[in-house]
Each structure stands twice: as structure tokens, then as C-alpha cells.
């Protein structure tokens, strides 16, 4: 049985304004997003590129309560909601943070700095997250050694996130298929590929190489920046189309 390919749509919570944000989630859901990844602004989004960093800056100046935004999102979509933020900023009040987003309707978290900056005790964090009834989407990249991937992939749910480039939204040259082939040898999780995927060709390449889904984020933010909501939704349509055609 060939599984349907996942479309994971990232959007920064409340971006570019509450109205457009909620419309985007609703329509993106309708257009075939399988899972939402919501950016919860950290102090410094160090592993993100300038587009997403700009979006964080913007929303930080607009809202006080991001959990509130999660609750509102929860109301308009039944798709899984994964909250993306940096462990660095929440480690001191982790349980509280996890409790809040859980009660706001989030299904899981994605912490891009988990493996990199907490190499000694990421297992402890994984436990604490699952104790709160939340999934963890584990973020791996070409910078994560084989051994670590083998150790952690089982704990990633509902998929394993593979960032193929050093940062989001910056198109550096990569050989997506060779990167993915290596990863698929190490895991039987569903793998969603993200970080600067650009153009139909790259998405097709990822799918051909065995990606189970695609994460899109910077491309939405860029579309919003340039031509607003409808343009961002166009991106959703086009990507879904490729996924379905595959």
C-alpha cells in the first residue's frame, strides 16, 4: 500500500495578522495540508533563515499570548498541530509550557535545538514531553550523525523531520536524493523533508528518493511578504498537486 504523501505546512503563529493567519490555516487545511507546524517565536531562532526570523519579529510585536492563538487554530482545523519552538527558551519552565500548549490543543512539539544543544539529556526531555501527552517531532539534519539518528527516530511522531539544508529558506546546493537515501537506511519512520525546498523539481526529487512528506514554510512566508494570502495559498495548492501526482 502506498501511503499518501504528507504535506506539512509551517506558519508562524499569527502571521502576518490574525485574520489572514486564520484564513490561511483554514484554507490550507481544505487544500490538503496534513499537519500544521506552528512557529512559536523564540528569543533567537538561530537555526532559521532571515524570512522566518523576520516573521517572528513581526508577530512578537503584535501578540502577547501565543497559546491563545494555538487555541483559535485548534478550533478551525482537525489536523495535527505541532508547535515549533526552541528548547533553549522553554527549558526553564518546560512543564508549564507543555501543559499550556497541550491544553490549547497542540498535539506535539518540534524543538530544532533539542539534539544539537542538549546532546547529553535529550532523552530526558523526550520523556518529559511524552509524559505531558504530547508527541515530539524530532528534527534531524545532515549534521546529525548516524548513531544519533538510529537512537532517536523511534521516538519521533507522527513523523521524522529532515532538514536537508543548514537553515530554513536559504537555497544552498544539496543533493537531496543522496541525503535521503542515507537517512532511509537508518530509519523506518515516516520522513518529512524540509528546509529551503524550492521549486517543483526539488520536491519531486525528495519524493523520488523516498520522502514520505514535504514541509513547506519559508515559501509561504515569502509569498505572504510578496503578494499576500492568496499567493501563499497558491503555494499550498501547487505543492499538494505534486504530492498527489507522485
Amino acid at each position, binding site marked *: 500500500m502506498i501511503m499518501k504523501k504528507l504535506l506539512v505546512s509551517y506558519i508562524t503563529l499569527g502571521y502576518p495578522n490574525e485574520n489572514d493567519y486564520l484564513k490561511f490555516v483554514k484554507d490550507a487545511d481544505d487544500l490538503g495540508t496534513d499537519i500544521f507546524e506552528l512557529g512559536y517565536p523564540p528569543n533567537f531562532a*538561530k537555526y532559521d533563515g532571515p524570512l522566518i526570523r523576520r516573521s517572528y519579529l513581526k508577530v512578537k510585536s503584535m501578540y502577547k499570548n501565543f497559546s491563545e492563538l494555538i487555541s483559535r487554530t485548534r478550533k478551525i482545523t482537525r489536523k495535527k498541530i505541532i508547535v515549533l519552538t526552541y528548547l533553549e527558551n522553554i527549558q526553564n519552565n518546560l512543564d508549564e509550557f507543555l501543559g499550556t500548549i497541550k491544553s490549547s490543543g497542540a498535539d506535539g512539539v518540534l524543538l530544532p535545538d533539542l539534539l544539537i544543544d542538549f546532546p547529553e539529556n535529550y532523552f530526558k526531555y523526550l520523556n518529559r514531553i511524552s509524559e505531558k501527552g504530547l508527541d515530539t517531532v524530532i528534527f534531524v539534519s545532515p549534521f546529525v550523525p548516524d548513531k544519533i539518528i538510529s537512537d532517536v527516530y523511534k521516538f519521533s511522531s507522527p513523523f521524522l523531520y529532515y532538514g536537508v539544508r*543548514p537553515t530554513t529558506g536559504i537555497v544552498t546546493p544539496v543533493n537531496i536524493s543522496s*541525503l535521503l537515501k542515507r537517512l532511509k537506511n537508518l530509519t523506518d519512520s515516516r520522513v518529512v523533508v524540509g528546509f529551503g525546498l524550492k521549486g517543483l523539481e526539488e520536491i519531486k526529487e525528495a519524493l523520488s528518493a523516498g520522502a514520505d512528506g514535504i514541509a513547506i514554510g519559508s515559501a509561504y512566508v515569502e509569498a505572504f511578504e510578496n503578494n499576500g494570502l492568496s499567493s501563499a495559498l497558491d503555494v499550498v495548492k501547487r505543492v499538494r498537486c505534486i504530492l498527489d501526482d507522485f
Partner: protein
Amino acid sequence: MIDLIPRYWYNIVPDLNRPLPPPLDPEDSDFSRIELLNRIIPKEVLRQQFTAERYVKIPDEVIELYSLAGRPTPLMRAKRLEELLDTPAKIYFKYEGATHSGSHKINTAIPQAYFAREEGVERVVTETGAGQWGTAVALSAALMKIKSTIFMVRVSYEQKPGRKTVMKLYGAEVYPSPSEITEYGKNELAKNSANPGSLGIAMSEAIEYVIKNDYRYLIGSVLEVVLLHQSIIGLEAIKQFEFIGEEPEVLIGCVGGGSNFAGFAYPFIGSKIGSRYIAVSSSEIKKFSKGVYEYDFPDSAGLLPMLKMITLGKDYVPPPIYSGGLRYHGLAPTLSLMIKDKIIEWMEFSEKETYSAAKLFANAQGIIPAPESAHAISAAIKIAKEAKEKNEKKIIAFNLSGHGLLDLSYYQKMEAK
């Protein structure tokens, strides 16, 4: 002989014990330095910089050029040094000075110039301090039949006419830096017309020059892609050790940015050969004893992405020791990580100790080492002496990263001291 040259480079990243912190932009940045890399570094080089492949195929033409340039380099036994030290240890060394550019730098200059030419670049640009790297780039460009421009730190340009002559002979344009060629250089000269220059200034000029003219920049150390290319050293050495039926236990290299050490030691670490790996710096520089592990810029101008590494700070002004190649403030991220995790040990030796080691080695083995490489020799001697005390038949191997034939003023100066 060409059969001894490996067909793949080795990338240690998939074999690390923990994830490598990725390159970063600083928090207050208004542009992406990672994006900027796209405009200054050849595409394939950048791809290799961020690859997760354990083995990266070496293009056939690069293998041919490696062969032309003197690869495989010999693995030699320093038997007479052992005798002089009266040690039960065996000491081997891999002799990178046997390449035509005189150091390991050619191992990465060739593929970088190759990938630049493959994408149609007409000129490659870099900076050089002591001149080893500039020589390697000039030669590689000549081999690729493309042009090269080298910004050479002014004080070296004036004091080391030999290196300049070699680069020019290979057809390179060589400018003393700061120069009038770039805005950055002009500004520096406006501030101080007698500016002796620095690697930081020269690097900034090179990058500016590349961006303005759509040339490509070649990088001499620190980045993982450079370490990847340098792995040819260790891969060859592993085959050579197999050939003679020995297995080294202690592997040693000197470190500037870390590329020759890593190129030599990583394949052994990856193959689980050896039990001690020792990176050697200078006690005048104190990279290890004073450096901190944090995100910092690899270049003084801060045009490149920040890397998490052991660093003395990008604005660190090194003391005027002769080993130009060790005066660099940072250390390759994978190497920094493994030093941090104590998988790799470190040592530091003074210029004086190093000079004695160099002289001892030259008299025992006939090779005049580059002053940088003499730091590795110092460590090998130290380990061999320890082996003597403990009466252990240790097998020691170090990387002799370059010859010192263009560093004779160092020997002259140290002899006079």
C-alpha cells in the same frame, strides 16, 4: 602508484558522537551569510560542505591531478629519529611536503579549483598569509587553466619574496594586502598607509573582490569541506599501513584551522584504528589552553556564517611566531567538538621547543619541516620519550604537513637566537 589514491573522500560528520552545531547568522544580522556563501563558493564545494554522505566520490580528473601533484605521498618510518631518542616506539610520518606545492594545502585547492572551473568560473581568488595556501591555489588554478588572484598579507609579501615568485610563476596575480584593488583595502590604507596587513583584511579583500566580479573564493581550512578533501591523507595512510602490516596507536597532527590534522586523523578515527589522537598547537597561540568553545566567525570581517568552534575570538591578534599557519583564531567545528568531548587530545609547544624538534628531525631524517609541521614532530617526540620511560612498543604516526624549504628565514632566525 595512482592505485594507492583513494576514490572517495571521507566525511566524519555521520560518524560523530553527537550532532554538529550548524552554521549560524549572528542574532542581529540583517542578511544571511549562508546565502552569501552561494555567491562566493563554488556550488559543488558548498554542497560538499553540508553533505551527510560518509564517502564522497572524487572526480576522476581530480584523482589524475592528485597524481600529477605528487600523490600518493610517502608514508615513511623515522627510524633514525627513533634511534636518536633511543625509544622502543616506532615513529611513522606521512609526508605531505612531497606534493609539488610543498604542503597538504594542494589536496583541497585542486578539487575547489576543479569545481570552480566546472561551473565556468574564470578566476578564483583567495588570501594567503605565510604563502602555503596561496601557492596551492595558484598551482591548482594553473592546472585547471583558469586565472587566480591572491591577496597576500603585505608584511609576508615583502618578507617572503620566494612564495610570491612561486605564485607568479604559476601565473597568479598577487597583491599585497591591504591593496588599492578593493574598497576594504583602500579604507584600511586610508586609515594607515603603512598597514602591514592581516589575514582578516586579506580575506575580506578577497571576498569583496569575488562578489564584485562574480569570481569564486577558495577556502584554505576550517570548513568541513576542506577537512573532507584533506581526508585523502589519512585514507592513503591507512592503505599504506595495511601494506606494511602495522597499526598506529597514536595519531598526531599540528592545527591551524585543523585541516591537515583532520585529514590525517579522521579516517583512522572513522576506521577505529588507533587509541590516541593528538592535535598540536603553539604555546604562544594557546588555542587550546585559552580558546573557548562558542559560535564565532571564521573570518575577521564577519562575512562568513558563524561556526561553533574553539576560538580565540575573531579579532584575536596572534603573536608574531613564524608558524603562520597556526596563527589562526579558530578551529574546524568537528574537531572542536571532538576536542570538547575529549575524543581528541591536545598539546601545545613553544616556538623554541618546536625549533629543536625540527632541527633534530632534519638531521635524523633529512627533511626540513615547515615550522607548523614541527609542532607535530614535537608531540611525536614527547610520546616517544614517554614510551621509553614506560618501555612501551608504541606505534606513533604523525602528519608532516609541509616542507620548510621556503621557510628558511625561520631557521636562520631561530639559529641566530
